């Protein structure tokens, strides 16, 4: 449904979106995560054809967002971040206007408006002026607008922002329901709500794609934890002698022990081989564990490495230093 290839968007010297590639299947619910300024909104604006990309390809349902922008816009429903609305219109008037603009035929226009008023729970404000609505209602009017033409793809920029916990639950339930036969891309910085809803997560940090995984695969992507005593470099050497080890991340674990987080190729469980290798090299071993990483772990890893980068290089971001400092790859 969405096909993005080497997408880059620069504003002057700032890379808002930086060489991002991913693929979203039909009827997938995708969560776009990232800190403020990570490039979520820019990426969504490119997908909705509002902004052009500086380079790269983005396609929605097979249509290029640059060259076939009208076809793309006929297939999306977009909820922008700040939900701009015309203050002088009434809710039902606004939805009717949007339905006409999006080409909903007059025979089922009233039905669609009725349906959207119902599922977005804004029926009781249908005759109110948009300018008098509170944030929670504006959010839901925006969602109703995105839904009105029953688009194949919904692009929602922080759809639960400004809602109270109860409304959040209801909105998420609605999105889950819609996700059965719509493709949905939503952005958020709330991990827990996203984790429960989406099939796939994309994590952006500073415009780069830090992670693009299905939620189901996330669990089957373990880290091996080893606590060993001995000089770090020597232990590392012992670890890297095991074939299949990809990277090792170390941090002190107390009592002179060092904790190594080890990632392996194809997520192989190499615990036995690792234990054998370390003991053979003559180091003490006290913990041998397999940790399934949650989304939160991934999030922390991605953003921690970003913080480290920031601490190391200041504001300047080096070109090819995505994995550095603590994480050393085998080839390095």
């Amino acid at each position, binding site marked *: 449904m969405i096909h993005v290839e080497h997408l880059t968007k620069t504003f002057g010297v700032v890379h808002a979106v930086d060489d991002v590639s991913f693929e979203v299947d039909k009827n997938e619910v995708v969560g776009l995560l990232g800190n403020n300024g990570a490039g979520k909104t820019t990426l969504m604006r490119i997908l909705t054809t509002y902004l052009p990309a500086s380079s790269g390809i983005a396609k929605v349902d097979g249509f290029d967002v640059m060259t076939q922008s009208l076809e793309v816009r006929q297939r999306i429903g977009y909820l*922008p971040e700040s939900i701009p609305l015309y203050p002088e219109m009434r809710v039902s008037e606004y939805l009717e206007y949007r339905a006409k603009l999006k080409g909903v035929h007059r025979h089922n226009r009233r039905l669609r408006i009725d349906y959207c008023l119902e599922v977005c729970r804004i029926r009781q404000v249908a005759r109110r002026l948009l300018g*008098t609505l509170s944030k929670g209602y504006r959010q839901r009017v925006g969602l109703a607008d995105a839904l009105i033409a029953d688009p194949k793809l919904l692009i929602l920029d922080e759809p639960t922002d400004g809602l*109270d916990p109860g409304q959040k639950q209801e909105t998420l*339930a609605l999105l889950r329901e819609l996700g059965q036969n719509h493709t949905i891309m939503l952005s958020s910085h709330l991990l827990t709500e996203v984790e429960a809803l989406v099939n796939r997560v994309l994590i952006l940090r500073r415009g780069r794609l830090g992670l693009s995984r299905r939620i189901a695969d996330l669990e089957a992507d373990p880290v091996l934890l080893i606590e060993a005593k001995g000089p770090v470099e020597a232990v590392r050497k012992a670890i890297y002698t095991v074939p299949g080890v990809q990277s090792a991340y170390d941090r002190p674990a107390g009592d002179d022990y060092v904790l190594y987080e080890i990632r392996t190729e194809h997520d192989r469980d190499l615990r036995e081989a690792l234990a054998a290798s370390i003991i053979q090299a003559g180091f003490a071993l006290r913990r041998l564990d397999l940790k399934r990483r949650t989304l939160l772990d991934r999030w922390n890893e991605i953003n921690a490495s970003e913080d480290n980068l920031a601490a190391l290089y200041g504001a300047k971001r080096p070109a090819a230093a995505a994995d550095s400092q603590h994480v050393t790859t085998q080839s390095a």
Partner: protein
Amino acid sequence: MSSPLLPDKTDSKLTTTVPPAPAGSASSELAPSVLLEDTLEVPRAVGAIAAGLVLFGGMALLLNLFGSARMIDVGWSLVILALGMSGLLFHAAFDHEIQFRRLYMVVALVLLGVGILLTVVPYPKTMGQQLPWAIPMLLLGVLFFLCFTRHEDDPLLRDTIERVFGAAGVLFALVGFGVSLFSEAFFLPIGFVLTLMGLVYAVAFIATRSNSDDVAYYGSLGLAAFGLVIALLVLARSLLTATGGTFFVGSGFVMLLVTLIYMVTGLVMGLDNSFCVLLRRELSSFFLSPMAYLSLFTFAVLAWLSFVFFVSSIYGNIAPEPVLRFYVISYLPVFGQLFIVPVLTMRLLSEEKRTGTLEVLLTAPVDEPIVVLAKFFAALLTYLLVWVPFGLILLAIPAVGAPLFDYRPILSFSVALVVTGSMFISMGLFCSSLSDSQIGAGVLTFIGMVLLTLIFFFTDEMVVGATLAPIMKHISFMDTWRTAMTGRVVLREYLFPLSAAVLFLFMTVKVLESRKWS
């Protein structure tokens, strides 16, 4: 309760403590979605003062008309009455309390009834002599009607009243055109007024129901079809009957123009292509904000002042011809429109940019040129509408004792107004696209308008020399107006304003598209 999706299915899926709202219960939600109430203090205060003014002005008027002369004469009592009525309309537009909206419903119905009565009553001698009273009443009636339907939430009552006003529109149009086809004397002024009123009422009817409603949808297409049928009848009457020639020159031509307006209006109201949808939204946003009303009010006052000056220049029974020239090119309207154009155009794009609605608009399947054209035509129509009070007051010239005047310069002047107005509005639209500050756009447009107006004073060869003078004459819209007011349509004078309009519109589209240049 027919809730196809949410309530029953969410029950099973909600995991936390908040119970889902039972189907149909509307008010189970708490903060932060508390509804903010509209504040009504200002409209009510204005309404109270206005009611006082209406009573006072009305009393003074009645005493003047049916008693002896008073300290406050007819003119001043009319001014007070007009101010009061404007205040009441302001109140009616905001106050949704049942007692007030129902009261204004009654006011609307009374105005409609009395308006019809005054149109047909042959007092003091012939039919139509009371039109100067009937027209404002019918217009006020439709305005109060719009205020009422906007607030009414009893669907049956709303539907009934809407049908009453819609039927009134049909009646006006049928009588206006029907009788005028056979009696030339009827068309000016009664038939003409009736056909326009019919249009206004039909538009109000369709607009309040929106064309998703079947009655309104077929009504709007019917309006266009009706215009077409009448146009064919007028043509047939002009070409096929013995008196066709005089009929066409006397009233047929104007009737043809009105039917054209019927056709265009019907199509714009009925069709759902993106241009028509946007045009309707832009127009409604003009009339849902105070801008259009302020401009209309200002120009109505200017028209009235112009008229007063004009009447004082009539010696005896002879109106100076061409009437328009002395009536319009007084300083008042020229200076008035210096301000009107920026006021009408400044928010068009800058407001959408500032609030971000432009993003919502342009991510819908609609292209920039359509957006720009819709905004342009909406503003142009409003601009032309602002001039209507001038025309309406001209209808009163016979009433103040001057003989019938040559009305045809009005037509040529209208053409000139459309052409030069296109230039002004497109310039304003362009300025509005440049900035996301309304004030900035307004000031820029105002400067442009001042420059265009000042050029008029530099068309003299003595001032700018023989080479520059003819160029300046082409640019100066005042010269275009002056030619038009003698009743001539000179195409080459329209070349500059039209090219300027096209250029400004093109540049506006490019400014909107410029976000894509990186």
